[in-house]
């Protein structure tokens, strides 16, 4: 296979057709039926049939037969399906309803007191079919455009075999194999770059258009597109566990978790149709029986009811809106795991942030080293760096980064991490504690406070205080903007949770405009704190407000699951985060939280517009029909017209601003 530049298109995209075969056949049939209908209509209206045939009745029957032709061409499949489905006991199926309504319109010819309704019967069937075709086209199109959006699945991997590069299915590549990714190709599997350097386009995963630089030793993630150089990658995960597979699986499964509104609509539809059909029957039979007089008028009103009784507009447009919202969000690198979460997110009233990795970028830097008198600053840093030698905590990393000398592991012994407090270690046979003031007081060491804000890392040696190191975390550039955007989106309260000291938290909260903060929390305290906030949020106002928790997804899985809705940030490549959260932000920009809420609100807005619009029009037409004002045309509009408009509206949910 040869690629003449550009990005290779994955399999699913090769056949790009606007209509499938079945739809094209239906379209041709409808066009034919409409043409015939027009001819018949002209004949019936303009030709003096009655004078030619000698009598009015004969003319009527000829018209009847003529209109029957386009009617049957357009609607024979509806009639057939209706007949079949009655056999299956599906009485309230839309084919059946449409058949009864149109046959009824034709049958009005039997009532000599009424005007003929054959033209209306045939036209109703035609419009119904046009509407159905459009529905199936629109739904197919949105299915496709969402599939295209998620079109990040790689086609092949280049593997070297017998000195030649061959393309193999990514499934066949094992962990540890080396693959080659050429410019323009999609990275097929997660791995580490072993040779070469390049720029990666991560837009399909994160929505971020700035390319990411990669070099030897960097981890890269499947689904990105290699933009410039040739790179060789050692595969670290089998295809099934790669980022691409996990994302696709997640989005595919999103449709399974249905929103309350969605379930409400399907439940509603179950009662709506039988109820309307029941009223239609009563309307056609009771008034003429009780009041006497003309049957045809009341029968016609009943038939109009039947046309309006199909709940399709609602039943299609509601899931379509949710699906569109989820699809649109995924284009921005916001993965929502289900319609229900989109619904909950739209009601977020309180947003709780974990500070580190969420509002701050988690890259701590040592900003000051303050040794106690008589201690060399380098020695202080060296002791701290050795004590933290085995820890992966961001603070430990920054201390090691600040220490320029080598770390001699021979000197370190008996290291114990004290979660949330610090670390205890034996270095050169001296007992060393490195950690916060709580740790110091726990081991009976007096520590000195510092005038700088930041995380203060106190160090003690054999029970003697030898100074502290000040570490500050860098606030993300768009954090303040993100908090402001949340407030603009209608979030009432923002809370920051942190293991840090109060003054550090206060400084960050003030800078970002966050309402409240809770400090010096251990990981387990965060759950308790979120539970308290949950109670407050649910007790507040109408009780419908929800609490969203935003974390980096690595240490806060329990909190993510406890909150009404858990949002994990910077999840690209983090399995734990993708697992625990309900909403996954692929990149680590806090401004995407507000965008996610924005998309959720917009989607819910569209859902409710459709519900109110569809039901409103239907009820209005029902009332008008009951009092005898509405005709068949209006009824067809209330059925397919409304469905079409609702679908078009639902498709708006897919459009999101980049």
């Amino acid at each position: 296979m040869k690629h003449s530049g550009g990005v290779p298109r994955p399999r699913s995209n090769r056949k790009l057709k606007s209509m499938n075969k079945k739809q094209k056949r239906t379209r041709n049939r409808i066009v034919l039926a409409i043409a015939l209908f027009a001819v018949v209509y002209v004949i019936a209206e303009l030709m003096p049939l009655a004078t030619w045939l000698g009598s009015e009745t004969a003319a009527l029957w000829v018209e009847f037969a003529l209109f029957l032709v386009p009617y049957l061409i357009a609607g024979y499949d509806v009639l057939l399906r209706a007949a079949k489905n009655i056999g299956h006991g599906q009485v309230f199926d839309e084919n059946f309803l449409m058949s009864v309504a149109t046959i009824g319109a034709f049958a009005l010819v039997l009532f000599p007191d009424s005007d003929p309704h054959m033209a209306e019967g045939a036209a109703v069937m035609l419009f119904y079919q046009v509407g159905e075709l459009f529905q199936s086209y629109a739904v197919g199109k949105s299915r496709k455009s969402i599939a295209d959006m998620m079109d990040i699945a790689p086609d092949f991997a280049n593997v070297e075999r017998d000195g030649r590069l061959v393309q193999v299915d990514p499934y066949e590549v094992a962990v540890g194999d080396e693959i080659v990714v050429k410019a323009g190709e999609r990275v097929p599997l997660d791995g580490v770059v072993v040779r070469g350097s390049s720029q990666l386009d991560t837009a399909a995963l994160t929505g971020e258009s700035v390319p990411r630089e990669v070099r030897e030793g960097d981890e890269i993630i499947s689904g990105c597109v290699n933009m410039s150089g040739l790179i060789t990658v050692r595969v670290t995960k089998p295809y099934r566990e790669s980022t691409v597979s996990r994302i696709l699986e997640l989005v595919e499964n999103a449709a399974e978790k249905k929103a309350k509104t969605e379930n409400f609509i399907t439940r509603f539809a179950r009662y709506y149709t039988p109820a309307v059909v029941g009223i239609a029957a009563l309307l056609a039979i009771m008034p003429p029986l009780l009041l006497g007089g003309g049957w045809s008028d009341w029968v016609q009103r009943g038939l109009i009811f039947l046309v309006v009784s199909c709940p399709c507009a609602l039943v299609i447009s509601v899931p379509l809106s949710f699906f569109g919202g989820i699809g649109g969000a995924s284009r921005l690198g916001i993965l929502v795991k289900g319609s229900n979460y989109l619904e909950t997110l739209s009601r977020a009233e309180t947003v709780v942030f974990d500070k580190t990795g969420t509002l701050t970028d988690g890259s701590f830097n040592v900003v000051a080293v303050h040794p106690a008198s008589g201690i060399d600053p380098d020695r202080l840093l060296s002791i701290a760096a050795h004590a933290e030698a085995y820890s992966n905590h961001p603070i430990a990393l920054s201390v090691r980064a600040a220490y320029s000398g080598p770390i001699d592991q021979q000197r370190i012994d008996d290291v114990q991490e004290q979660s949330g407090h610090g670390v205890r270690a034996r270095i050169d046979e001296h007992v060393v504690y490195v950690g916060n003031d709580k740790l110091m007081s726990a081991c009976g060491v007096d520590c000195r406070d510092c005038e700088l804000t930041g995380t203060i890392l106190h160090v003690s040696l054999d029970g003697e205080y030898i100074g502290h190191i000040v570490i500050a975390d860098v606030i993300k550039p768009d954090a303040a903007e993100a908090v402001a955007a949340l407030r603009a989106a209608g979030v009432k309260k923002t809370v920051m949770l942190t293991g840090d000291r109060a003054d550090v938290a206060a400084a960050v909260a003030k800078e970002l405009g966050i309402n409240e903060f809770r400090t010096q929390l251990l990981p387990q305290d965060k759950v308790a704190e979120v539970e308290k906030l949950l109670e407050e949020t649910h007790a507040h106002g109408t009780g419908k407000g929800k609490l969203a928790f935003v974390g980096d997804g690595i240490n806060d899985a329990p909190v993510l699951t406890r909150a009404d809705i858990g949002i994990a940030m910077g999840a690209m490549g983090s399995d734990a985060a993708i697992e625990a959260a309900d909403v996954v932000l692929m990149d680590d920009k806090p401004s995407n939280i507000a965008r996610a809420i924005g998309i959720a609100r917009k989607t819910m807005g569209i859902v409710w517009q459709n519900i109110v619009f569809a039901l409103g029009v239907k009820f209005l037409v029902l009332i008008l029909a009951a009092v005898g004002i509405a005709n068949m045309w209006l009824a067809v509009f209330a059925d397919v017209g409304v469905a079409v408009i609702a679908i078009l509206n639902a498709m708006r949910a897919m459009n999101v601003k980049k």
Partner: protein
Amino acid sequence: MRKAFKLQDLDCANCAAKMENAIKGIDGVKSATVSFMTQKLVIEADDDCFDAVLDEAQRACSKIEPDCVILR
């Protein structure tokens, strides 16, 4: 066991809702969802009667939408 299947020719949203309801009522089915948008059926049922459940589900679907086929 929990498995997902593609539904071919699922053309009507209301039918999808009816199918979901019908499949949920089959003996041995713990949970079932039919998604109109993704044209997927996800079914969770006891292992020992899974095939029987699936046959029953196909019958239920055909009753509601004769063209609709569960691809397995």
